[in-house]
Each structure stands twice: as C-alpha cells, then as structure tokens.
C-alpha cells in the first residue's frame, strides 16, 4: 500500500470524502460506495467521468496536469450535487490515473447559506433604506459631543463632498455651515428645535429643523426652499405692485398708511391727479396714455426718497406717503416744498408724444384722532380744491378748510 492509499483510507474512514479513479481517457474504473448520492444514476465501472461530473468539463487541463505531475492538486469549491455540496479535488494518483475527491461540505455550506441569505436580505433592505434616506431632505446627524456623525447623499452633494468620511467627526466651524450666524450645533439646535426656521446658506434658503434622537444625537433636516422663496417674493411683488407702472398698488399703500397712523409716525399724505388725462387718452389713444403714466411715475420717483411710498390709486390718481423729513418743526413746510417741486418737475417735463402735462395735488398731515378714512378725506378735499381752483397746483388741507369755510359763509 503506497502513501496515497494510506491517506486515502484514513480520510475515507471519516466519511468526509468520496472518490473516483479515472484513467487518462476519462473512464471511471473505481469509486467509493458513497459516490452514488451525488449523481442521479447508479455508478458502474466503465462509465465516463464527465457524465458523473459535468462540472469538470472545461477543466480538462487540470486533469492533464494531475496525470503528469506528482503532487498536482486543483480544487473546484462549493459545487451543488443533488442536495449535497462538495468541494471537487482533482489530484495526481499515477501517470495514468487521476483521483477525484468529493469532499462533503453540506453541513457547513448550509450554515453559510443561512448567513449569506440573512446578509443578502439585509443588504437589500439596507440599500433600500439608504435610497430612501438619500432621496429625502438634506440630513445631518450630530453626536452628543457636537461632532458630525452622518450626512446623507443629498447634503454631501449640496456641499460638493465626496463621502461622509470627508466631514465625519468634524465640528460646526469646520463645515460650510459656519457661514451661518451661529457659533455651534447647539446654537443651531436651540434655534430650530421647536419649529422650522428659515436660514440662508450661501445663496440658498433652507427650512431647518432639529430633532433630538435617543437623547444623544441631534438630527438636522435642511429643506432647500430657495426656489419657493424666490417664487414667494415674486408673488408678493406681483400682488403689491401695479403691473403698468411698477409702483405700489393702493392696498399696499393703505396698509402702510394704517401702520404709520397706529405708530403715530411723522408723515404726510399726498394725493395727486393728472389734469385732463381723459383728454390725453381720447386724443392720443390709451397706449400713449399708458406711456405717459409710466413716464410720469418715473419722474416722480426721482423726486422721492427710498423710504417714501408711492402708489397708483387707480386710473390717473396717485398717492404718496412722504416719510422722510429733516426737522421736527418743518413737517408742513418740507412736505409742501417737496410736493411743489414734484408739481414743477411734471409741469416742466416734455412728455413724449403728448408734450406738456400737469397734475394737481392735495396734501394732508395726520392728526392724533385720525383714522385712515378721515385723513384720506382731508387730502381728497384738498385735491378737489386744487382742481377746482384751476389745476396744476398744490393745496394744503388747512387752506382747503379755509376756502371751504369761505365758500359756505
């Protein structure tokens, strides 16, 4: 008995291996009793090796090498044969015989299979959850020690970061978030823990919200609302501004007027009406009339301060809230001076297509007992008198009172 036989018998006695011996033509001439469980026929001497083990088709080179070289050994791992798993060993037996060992690894493979099944199912689940997380808002998870623990793909992409390792373990001031007016993640947490807060990062606007996780981690969500913000601003602008002239609409100036009255601010209310505008429309057409309105509003805006409110009241009537004054005692004088200047600049201006155009003005100052309506009424009376007295002039409210008293008496 040679050395191989001794080893072979030893391992076969442990029932760990079955074997086939085949000649160089691939004819099986000897096999162990247990080989039958791996194939679907009863093995017989003289059968072909590849009929039992088609797995070895394509591995003819291994068999040639095993025949030629003593000690040659090749293994094909984890092959399913019927309900068993085997490792196939192709070994040198003699120069004209190849030894095929089938090592039964069914038990350990089935254990591995359970683990692999569990692992693969979890990987699939993890990948799905990861996709869900990455598709959500920008997420940032912060540890108890105020260090970055996790950021989802959306947030990493926003800050142009390759992966989480780039920022993991970093503090607030090491993130691009440092441009915010907060000093730490704790500050940001306090600001956003109760409700979503609008914050700006770079040129973008985000709604930020903090949530405490497991009392140790803070989860920040950042929803990019830049587009909505600008849309909101555009909508607000469209609501508050007159589409033809670009100045405010009446409802906006009304709102400001009521606020100023409530605050008892120092301001003056001016109502103005373009003289004979119906004639301009009738003579030159509404297109030319519209152009004149635009030209007039641009002219008046040049005369006004940024803080003043200029609104289209409707048609050819306008309203101005003068809110910028130099001295406490000169409210009336300053207002009159400003309005007279506006009147003069309109009267002197040469409007395209129509030439000269004038406007009449009524001016009123708020009193303590005033409501918006009473103030409007006085300014409107003053404007009426400006028109009545020949147009192209400015009438102050007390002057209107006097004239009206004279007319009544």
């Amino acid at each position, binding site marked *: 008995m040679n050395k191989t036989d001794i080893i072979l018998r030893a391992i076969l006695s442990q029932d760990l291996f079955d074997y086939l011996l085949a000649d160089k033509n691939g004819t099986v001439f000897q096999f162990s009793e247990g080989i039958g469980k791996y194939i679907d026929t009863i093995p017989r001497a003289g059968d072909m090796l590849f009929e039992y083990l*088609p*797995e070895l*088709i*394509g*591995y*003819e*080179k291994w068999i040639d090498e095993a025949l030629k070289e003593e000690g040659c050994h090749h*293994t*094909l*791992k*984890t*092959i*399913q044969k019927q309900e068993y*798993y085997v490792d196939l060993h192709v070994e040198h037996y003699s120069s004209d015989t190849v030894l095929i060992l089938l090592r039964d690894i069914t038990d350990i*493979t089935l254990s*591995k*299979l359970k683990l*692999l*099944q569990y*692992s*693969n*199912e979890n*990987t*699939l689940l993890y*990948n799905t959850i990861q996709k869900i997380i990455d598709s959500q808002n920008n997420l940032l998870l912060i540890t108890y020690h105020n260090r970055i623990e996790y950021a989802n793909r959306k947030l990493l992409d926003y800050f142009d970061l390759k992966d989480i390792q780039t920022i993991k373990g970093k503090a607030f001031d090491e993130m691009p978030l440092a441009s915010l007016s907060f000093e730490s993640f704790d500050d940001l947490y306090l600001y956003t823990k109760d409700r979503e807060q609008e914050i700006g990062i770079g040129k973008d606007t985000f709604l930020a919200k903090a949530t405490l996780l497991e009392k140790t981690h803070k989860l920040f969500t950042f929803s990019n609302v830049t587009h909505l913000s600008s849309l909101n601003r555009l909508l607000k602008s469209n609501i508050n501004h007159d589409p033809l002239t670009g100045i405010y609409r009446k409802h906006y100036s009304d709102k400001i007027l009521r606020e100023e009255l409530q605050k008892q601010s120092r301001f003056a209310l001016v109502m103005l009406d373009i003289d004979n505008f119906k004639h301009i429309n009738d003579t030159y057409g509404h297109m030319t009339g519209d152009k004149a309105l635009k030209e007039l509003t641009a002219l008046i805006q040049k005369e006004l301060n940024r803080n003043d409110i200029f609104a289209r009241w409707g048609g050819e009537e306008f309203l101005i809230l003068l809110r910028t004054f130099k001295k406490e005692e000169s409210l009336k004088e300053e207002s009159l001076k400003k309005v007279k200047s506006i009147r003069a600049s309109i009267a002197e201006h040469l409007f395209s297509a129509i030439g000269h155009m004038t406007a009449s003005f009524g001016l009123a100052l708020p009193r303590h007992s005033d409501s918006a309506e009473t103030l409007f009424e006085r300014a409107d009376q003053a404007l009426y008198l400006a028109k009545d007295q020949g147009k192209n002039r400015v009438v102050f409210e007390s002057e209107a009172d006097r004239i009206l008293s004279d007319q009544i008496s």
Partner: protein
Amino acid sequence: MIRKKILLLGDFGVGKTSLIRRYVDNAFDDSYLTTIGVKISKKHLTIRDTECELLIWDVEGATPLKQVLKSYMLGASGAIFVADCSREETIAHLDQHIERFLSVNPSARYVIAYNKSDLLTEEQKEEISCKKYARFTSAKEDSNVSQLFINLTEKMLP
C-alpha cells in the same frame, strides 16, 4: 452535438437562478433564495440544425465583499450578465463583471439581461440606456428568457 459551458454572472439577488429555472424547468418562484457556490443545469437546443448541450452554471452572486471565483469561469464559452433593472447599482456593476469574465475567457461571447422588467413601466424602461447585447427580461412573466439563451448560443456557434 456541441457542448458549451456558460455562466450567469451578476450581483446577488438579480434573478440569475430564476432565469435558469424559467428556461430549464419553465418554473418560477417569487421568494428570494440565495445561491451559494455553483449549481449546474443542462439544456439541449438546436440552432441552425446544430444540436447543442448547454451546461449552465448558476453562480453565487457577487456581493460588495465577495467577487465570483475566477476558477468557476475556466473553460466557459459564454456568459449571461444579469442586472436587476429596478436596482441601478446592479446595472452599474455590469462592466466589472464583464471585465472580470473576459480576463479569464477573452474570446468568450456574452449577452446582458436587464431582468425583473415586470417591475418597470414602459416609460421607466425607456429611461434606461441599454448596453450593447442587452435586452429586458422577466423570469416571472417568461419574457425574453428563451431568446436570451438562444441569442447567446447563436453567438457561440462557429
């Protein structure tokens, strides 16, 4: 008769075993059972009057931590690379699988299956830019499965 060894390769869970089961046994099971190691099935078919026996190797799917053993690929004449068209990453990994296989068998032929096409609408399928030699398949609905194997066999024949 011509005998050819082919492999089905791709990420785990893309439906390699289901494609083989559909083609060889005309059966389908919705539950996911991981393949470990390799299992061989045989299928006879006749292409252009030539009888062929396909030795179809159902190989354990690749995972992020474990690639398919190159020893399984020895002597293969062809391969079907399988991706799950509902999981983008499995499509993205196709090139790696192809490269690995061709490094062992440079002259082998291959086709590609974007499997589980029953999960996508026609519009969603149109959004996927298919690779060369690729087709949508569904083992569940028996869509394009036979054509996949026949197409590969035609390519392998002289």
